[in-house]
């Protein structure tokens, strides 16, 4: 995978993960163009489109579009499964996830993505293990206030 973008129906970018090195300017340009192209698609159209020399796989979940750019040799159908798996992970973690959860806890959304995908490929195919890794990371983050000594 080259990159993944999450954006709302109004075109606001909620999450972006890039697996190829690109300048900020290029990223912005690509994001703008792609968001426009995907939002212009009618609901009856299929989830794949060709854009530049990449294949774009996108799926809409409620108010969010999940959009991945894959290379020619990658399997489009399994990419849909990858998107679905990510949504399931978010759902399990946040408990019935909605767009607001991702807006207010975007760093967690990134953590979960980073435990699932690395360098554009899936690193863990077991849902349980990904969630376990997140739990462990969460535990490390919990800060217990030191009791004040009188």
């Amino acid at each position: 995978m080259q990159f993944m973008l999450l954006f709302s129906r109004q075109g606001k970018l909620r999450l972006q993960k890039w697996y190829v090195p690109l300048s900020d300017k290029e990223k912005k340009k690509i994001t703008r163009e792609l968001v426009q192209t995907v939002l212009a698609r009618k609901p009856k159209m299929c989830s794949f489109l060709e854009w530049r020399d990449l294949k774009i796989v996108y799926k809409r979940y409620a108010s969010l579009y999940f959009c991945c750019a894959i290379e020619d040799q990658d399997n489009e159908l399994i990419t849909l499964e990858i998107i679905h798996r990510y949504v399931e992970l978010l759902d399990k973690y946040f408990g019935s996830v909605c767009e607001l959860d991702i807006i207010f806890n975007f760093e967690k959304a990134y953590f979960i993505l980073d435990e699932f995908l690395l360098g554009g490929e899936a690193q863990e195919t077991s849902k349980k293990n990904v969630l376990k890794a997140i739990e462990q990371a969460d535990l490390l983050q919990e800060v217990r206030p030191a009791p004040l000594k009188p």
Partner: protein
Amino acid sequence: MGSSEMCRDLAGEVEKLLKTSNSYLRKKAALCAVHVIRKVPELMEMFLPATKNLLSEKNHGVLHTSVVLLTEMCERSPDMLAHFRKLVPQLVRILKNLIMSGYSPEHDVSGISDPFLQVRILRLLRILGKNDDDSSEAMNDILAQVATNTETSKNVGNAILYETVLTIMDIKSESGLRVLAINILGRFLLNNDKNIRYVALTSLLKTVQTDHNAVQRHRSTIVDCLKDLDVSIKRRAMELSFALVNGNNIRGMMKELLYFLDSCDPEFKADCASGVFLAAEKYAPSKRWHIDTIMRVLTTAGSYVRDDSVPNLIQLITNSVEMHAYTVQRLYKALLDDISQQPLVQVASWCIGEYGDLLVSGQCEEEEPIQVTEDEVLDVLEGLLVSNLSTPVTRGYSLTAIMKLSTRFSSVNRIKKVVSIYGSSIDVELQQRAVEYNALFKKYDHMRPALLERMPIMEKTASNGPTEIVQTNGIPSMTAYNKNGLKIDFTFERANPNPNIAVITIHATNSTEAEMTDFVFQAAVPKTFQLQLLSPSSNVVPALNQGTVTQVIRVLNPQKQQLRMRIKLTYTHKGSAVQDLAEVNNFPPQSWQ
């Protein structure tokens, strides 16, 4: 996302981590190694020892990332590929276990055990089995098993089947397996899910050259897809339909394709029209059928027909001698209905100019001859000259047609009058023609009949019209550059005896009205390739696609890396120098794998 320096420095650490006992770290190390190899391919050797035991993993996460690592290594280096071929039996076993083993809640997706891993293994098997009989044979059974046992009710199962089909088509599989794969694709076409249909059409398009007969069996389903709502599916179905047309099915297919041309979106019409013309030319069962088909295209999609089809059609009509009367009659009738579609009008006026005498004499055999007088014909042609709908090119055609009729009709005075009026036309082209024709009447009247007599049958030489870019050796051609009227196509051949050399022939055509002189084509490739540019056929690209400049490029690609090229074009057009740079990335995989 480290840089190449970072990769070099840390590669040793990554390699060590690959061997650690912690599976959490190992899977991450494997993917890091993938990235390192992508950035610094020379370091691949370093990871070789660590890969020894990767496939004996129990942990799916590590197993998955290991397969990704092995895939990356095999894709990059033919030596690694040869080295890892011995892993095929192990991979087959792992895949078998995944399919046969019971329910594993951890990795289950809709009843299928770890589909991500299955897809990855199938992909690696594809790379290992390609061009290798032994490996292909070893994986034959498991592929058949996956193909027949995978549950197809959900997307997951179909994703695995899709990967399986791709693998079967790429390796040296036996014909029974290939037919099984194509049948799976045929079933996909009937699936309710449009994504599946899209994927099926794309795959069928890739295989139609090699397994033509098997794909033919699904022709009716493919043709039904022309009526699909989704644009991408319609386009794929159209391309596939044209690929499937042959002498046997031409009549039926053409009916469907013409119906499609009628009702499809404008963006398809040009391509569809061109496709229809090509197919008609190759497989027309009779001249009458051919002319009828052309008429149908001109009248339904006339304004979308490419400009270069007009000369081709004219040549076709000229060469169908016995159909002249029929053709001119049909074209005349079409003109009476509608003069807005320029290609139709141009072809029609040319024909009337040539065969107007047959029209007024009512000689048609194929259908009821119409009664039309010379004046009526001249009315129509003059109407074209004054109409706002006619382009300058069209006006030129009709003026010349009127002039030609001066030797075929008796109302020469009327024609003389028309021609002299246009001697003072604002349009320079029209004015020039009119002045020349006037001179013909006045000073060279004795030469007029000879000059304006019937056109002879034209030989179709290689330089007439745009050359048809055809597949050579099964490697599809591609358009590398298309801007400002300059189009450059690449066709490919693999050199024998050295398969690492790709021989690319560039075909440069120019669709503008002015020729391009001092045309120079230059190319540069990445460091791992070597390039040799032979001399071009000429430095002048003629206007209006009347000729092609060709040049041969030889590319040595020992590492079988993905072919990329940067091209620089310089030429003089309409007096000014033009220069352009472009990247070419869309090389078909068969040209470099």
